[in-house]
């Protein structure tokens, strides 16, 4: 270990360190800084300043040389990396040598390695959990019981929703609690028709407007953030110059910065958390500077691990000490295990006849949503848990490409409206199993000297049965709605395609069967908090980001109070 002076240690000492600057890390930074803690936020990727660093945000289609298609030679340089392979978003893609990993079984891993992370790139759909979700493991006998319930998190959902700005309709559903909503975006004619069909034909399910993190009507708190009304550009994943949707870059990071207490350090690849055996707690974080390769240590009283579920696991697994030979906090031996994702395999589409005299105007950054209806009140199907369904209808252009010359040109310049179409996609809860896990390679390292990760995640029979049910149910619902040419199938997409990685550092009541307690503290190392997807004991059917934000805000405020009471 380098011989560093007392002054150097002091310079590198903070009250808190947050690993990760994304959708949950940004919230940790904001809450800790607003509570007066001098906070170091470590981000492995480059800086992305709100507005300044959205190079394609205001480019028109004709301003992209290949109209969005990435040239083959450029594609080759990215190897097997698939994410963000469009001219509009290529600057978010990582190079193959950034972080090679070993897929023991096929696993799609989308990474956002820049300040703000995937909060710039997410689908912005948000739903609250209910006790139907928190009680799932206990009722159905899988995973372990969550150490929290809806009542614990409800005030924190409100807290984050108000600041982030969540648009939605108060639907009064016990299994999908209403939130602090800005006005909802509309369902279109065909979606409304399907909504009516479900209301008439079913008592167990409903189509509602998808709740989303868009400012349909910015409030004072949003205007104070410098954000404005969503303009329905649907160019979200380029970064929004208006801050029209929630991202760490537009919202939580500037709020943290405003306090003067935040130090944001990009190009900081976290190697491990430093464990102080004498004090029996973590003392800081070791990073590899991505530019210089230098290893640097930073010190703090509390550490928040928000590197993204997969990386948070990696960091803890790589935090080896005599006390913790298999990873920080890993007395249970379960670190990296019970890793899970969402089941996105089911996809469906259909043609819609009629509604010829109606169309849509503007663009829809959201979609319709059917909350989980399977096994809600009790276990009834031949599979555990269930799935929610995203629904989107639209009317296409009826442009005819036949012919040549002046006739063809006139068809192209004056395209008639075509028919309506509708599509649906599944978001299934998966049952975490011990064999789905992450672990470190014993030999291979990446260019930062960090062991490569091995991912070992596979679908189970429960997932297969659930996809089949989705297909059958969508066929039935679409048929009742009078839709034609219904096509519901199993895409057999890889685990991870959902980009909702969860688990590996699960919360639980018992330190023998979990890693984190009810406050997201490592059971045996209480000044380390993990509040991103890694903490999830079960997956639910909801888009998880809102829950990560609420859990993080709650844990951060607890950390502050524990610190003040000298408990940490």
């Amino acid at each position, binding site marked *: 270990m380098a011989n560093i002076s007392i002054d150097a240690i002091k310079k590198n000492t903070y009250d808190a360190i947050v690993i990760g600057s994304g959708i949950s890390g940004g919230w940790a930074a904001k809450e800790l800084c607003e509570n007066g803690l001098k906070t170091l936020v470590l981000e492995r990727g480059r800086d992305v300043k709100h507005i300044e660093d959205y190079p394609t945000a*205001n480019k*028109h*289609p*004709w301003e992209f*040389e*290949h*109209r969005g*298609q*990435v*040239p*083959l*030679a*450029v594609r*080759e*340089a990215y*190897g097997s990396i698939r994410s963000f392979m469009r001219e509009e978003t290529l600057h978010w893609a990582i*190079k*193959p*040598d950034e972080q090679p990993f070993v897929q023991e079984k096929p696993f799609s891993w989308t990474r956002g390695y820049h300040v703000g992370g995937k909060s710039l790139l997410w689908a912005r759909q948000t739903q609250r959990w209910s006790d139907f979700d928190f009680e799932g493991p206990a009722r159905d006998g899988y995973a372990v019981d969550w150490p929290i319930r809806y009542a614990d998190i409800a005030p924190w959902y409100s807290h984050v929703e108000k600041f982030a700005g969540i648009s939605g309709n108060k639907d009064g559903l016990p299994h999908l609690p209403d939130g602090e909503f800005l006005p909802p*975006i*509309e*369902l*279109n*004619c065909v*979606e*409304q028709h399907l909504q009516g069909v479900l209301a008439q034909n079913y008592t167990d399910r409903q189509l509602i407007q998808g709740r989303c993190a868009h400012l349909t009507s910015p409030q004072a708190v949003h205007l104070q953030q410098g954000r404005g*009304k969503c*303009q*329905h*550009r649907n*160019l979200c994943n380029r970064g929004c110059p208006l801050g029209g949707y929630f991202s760490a870059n537009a919202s939580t990071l500037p709020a943290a910065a405003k306090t003067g207490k935040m130090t944001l350090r990009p190009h900081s690849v976290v190697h491990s958390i430093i464990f102080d055996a004498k004090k029996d707690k973590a003392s800081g974080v070791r990073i590899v500077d991505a530019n210089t390769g230098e290893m640097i240590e930073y010190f703090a009283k509390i550490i928040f691990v928000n590197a993204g579920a997969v990386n948070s696991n990696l960091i803890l697994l790589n935090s080896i000490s005599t006390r913790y030979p298999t990873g920080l906090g890993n007395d249970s031996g379960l670190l990296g295990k019970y890793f899970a994702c969402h089941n996105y395999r089911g996809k469906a589409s259909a043609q819609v006849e009629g509604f010829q*005299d*109606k*169309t*849509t*105007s*503007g*663009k*829809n*950054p959201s979609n319709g949503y059917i909350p989980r209806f399977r096994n809600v009140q009790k276990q009834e199907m031949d599979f555990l848990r269930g799935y929610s369904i995203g629904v989107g209808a639209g009317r296409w252009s009826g442009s005819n*490409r036949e*012919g*040549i*010359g*002046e006739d*063809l*040109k006139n068809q*192209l*310049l*004056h*395209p008639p*409206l075509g028919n309506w179409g509708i599509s649906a996609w599944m978001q299934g809860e998966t049952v975490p199993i011990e064999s789905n896990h992450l672990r470190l390679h014993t030999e291979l390292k990446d260019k930062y000297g960090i062991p490569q990760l091995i991912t070992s995640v596979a679908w189970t029979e429960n997932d297969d049965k659930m996809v089949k049910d989705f297909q059958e149910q969508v066929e039935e619902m679409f048929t009742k709605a009078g839709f034609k040419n219904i096509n519901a199938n199993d895409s057999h997409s890889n685990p991870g395609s959902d980009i909702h990685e969860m688990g590996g550092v699960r919360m639980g009541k018992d330190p023998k069967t979990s890693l984190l307690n009810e406050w997201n503290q490592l059971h045996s190392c209480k000044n380390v908090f993990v509040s991103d997807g890694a903490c999830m004991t079960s997956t639910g059917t909801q888009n998880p980001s809102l829950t990560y934000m609420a859990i993080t805000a709650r844990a951060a405020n607890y950390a502050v109070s524990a610190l003040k009471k000298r408990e940490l």
Partner: protein
Amino acid sequence: MHRRKSIQNIALLAGGLLALPNWAKAWSLDSLPMVGKPLNPAAENTLAQIIETIIPESDTKGAKSLGVPAFVNTMLADCYERKVVENVEKGLAVVEKLATQRYQQSFANLTTPQKEQLLLSLEKETDSNLKDFYSLIKNLTIQGYTSSEYVQTTFLKYEMAPGHYYGCVSI
């Protein structure tokens, strides 16, 4: 010209260095059979003629004045595999051959109806390579044309920021 640009792009990706990074040591641009190449000048000329025939100039702008031939050339050179571009070259040669066979002229010297007839006959071709060639050129022409600023803003009601979404509007 396009090829040099591609090499520049790779160099920039490799961190501003002209040497390839370690993980890419095994390949050079020449060893990538995938990457396309620009058309030879004669082929480019025939292609420009075809593109203008597909979407001609009249009281509304046509493909040529909107720069679509340059767009199609860029797409072929940068975004399509070499074997696809070679098929395009073969197809263009066939077009010239048919023009000579049927009308004893080069394609450029045919009348507009003759050009149109010749190209329409390709759509009914049994030779799938020839059919694919014309289909690709036609689709790229349409793509370049309909995504141009002129067409988008004048005819296709392009709006970057509509500011709203109404789900059920009467026509």
